């Protein structure tokens, strides 16, 4: 799977989680068009996060190790760090818990998608 496709999948996943949590609090039909609009900033956030924090692990180490080994070696610490950041964010600004929850679950799943890739990642 190519990296842009992973970013697209991650963006869709993040949008779904974000709006599911948001709608669970307060659902108004007028908000539905914003789902499509929000896909743009969510994609930018996802793209940047993936390219800056996940992709380098697979890009820099791919010659030496397989994707599976990279996943097993670095994912646990990334998950713990990411969880810590998101938990801190959720406690500090509880109003945007949907953002932190979607960020956490999307980055976790993106690691699985990258780890699944055989051979090159781009």
């Amino acid at each position: 799977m190519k990296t842009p496709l992973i970013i697209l999948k991650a963006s869709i996943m993040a949008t779904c989680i974000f709006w599911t949590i948001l709608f669970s609090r307060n659902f108004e039909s007028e908000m539905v068009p914003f789902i499509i609009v929000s896909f743009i900033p969510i994609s930018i956030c996802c793209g940047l996060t993936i390219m800056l924090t996940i992709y380098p692990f697979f890009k820099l180490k791919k010659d030496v190790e397989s994707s599976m080994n990279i996943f097993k070696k670095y994912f646990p610490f990334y998950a713990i760090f990411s969880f810590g950041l998101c938990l801190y964010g959720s406690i500090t600004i509880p109003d945007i818990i949907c953002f932190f929850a979607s960020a956490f679950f999307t980055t976790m799943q993106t690691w699985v998608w990258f780890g699944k890739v055989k051979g090159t990642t781009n």
Partner: protein
Amino acid sequence: MKKLSLFTGALLFSTLFYKQNIGLNLTLFSLTTILILGIYNPIAFKKKRTIAFCILYIITAISIFFYKSTLSIVANCVAFFTLIGHVSQYNSSIYINWINGLYTFIAGFFHRNFSVIENEQKVKPNKTIDYVHWTKIIGIPMVVVIVFISLYKNGNPVFSNLISKIDFGFLNFQWILLSALGYYLLYNISTPIAVNPATEIDLKTGNILKNSSKFSIENSKKENQLGVILISLLNLLIIIFLITDFTYLLSSNDLRASIFSNQVHSGINALIASIVMAIIIILYFFRGNLNFYRNNKTLKNLSYLWIILNIILVINTSVKDYQYIYYFGLTYKRIGVLIYLLLTIVGLITTSIKVMKIKNFWYLLRVNTHTAFTILIVCSVVNWDKHITFYNINYAQSMDFRYLNNLSNNNTFLLKHYCDYLEFKGKNNRLVNKKYNNYIKELNDRNWQELSYDNFKLDSEK
């Protein structure tokens, strides 16, 4: 059976925590997690250490029910991660247990999801989920049952009454999402995961330092000389510091809180710097070959002396802290200082054992993290607010009433008792009564999920 336990646990999770504060719910959740861990990992629960960690976890869970303090909640979380980490790998160090426990709790699902993908690449899956079949066996009976309920409702007023009494008001989308989160968390912990290569490295690393092949007598001799000079000077310095400190302590009659506070806090700062440096310097000199150098006895003796002098420094600061407490009462900071001093003594003793028995750095880390964990658990079962209040009212030479009043509700009944039987000043009486009334209101407003021991105490008093 296993899946059913997860599903039930998930429903219980949202029932316990949906729009509720901490109380009985966290205690019950702790017991649920133990049950699920036990169902999924029966072999682990035959081991004595697992049972011991389980008991510690239950103790912290019960202390939440009794005191509901932040410390007991923190201790409960740490005990939880320790237990899960221990189930993932029985022989790993406690800090590795924490990493494994935390990782399993937050990302176990994704790790296992990845492992499934990895296995799929090796062997073909032999089982696929028949979604149509599952939809049929859940959906069709549900629709039929709903149709029949609506039919029977019209035919029998008693049945109609019974059905109308069932209240699904608590069920909403947020509740369902919380159930999903509960399922995710319980699924994560059901099969604990060991983080590798951290766990593998930990298992391979022993506590004993080994002699390296690059042993050079000349280099060891030079390093030994440097160590002897440096630690001698540091010993001399700490002796002078202790003499001046004792002189000041014996000659000073000034009992002002600010002076005591400054002395204890500056003493603590000096201690932190001194002990961290002491341990780093000792670790540096005894990191390798110097342990096996034949003429290292002087350096070893100087190191022991330095450790003893540091322990005297700790005792000196403890005396200051005790005096501070005696004159001005207990506070969390003053108790914290005593706990820090206790940890420091343990750290110094383990450092001397490291030098004496040629142990490595990992030995220090293992023993000291274990000690810190034990002290955390012990501290979590103490009702500190009640003890602080009791001591300050009965034994302290002076008392800061506002401080006692600002403590958590764990001291409310005790304050009320003193308010009724001792004569506090009018303003203090008002403050205590206000705190008591607010707390009683809070207790009465609690749902069953938020109950604590004080609710039962209140009921028995009525």
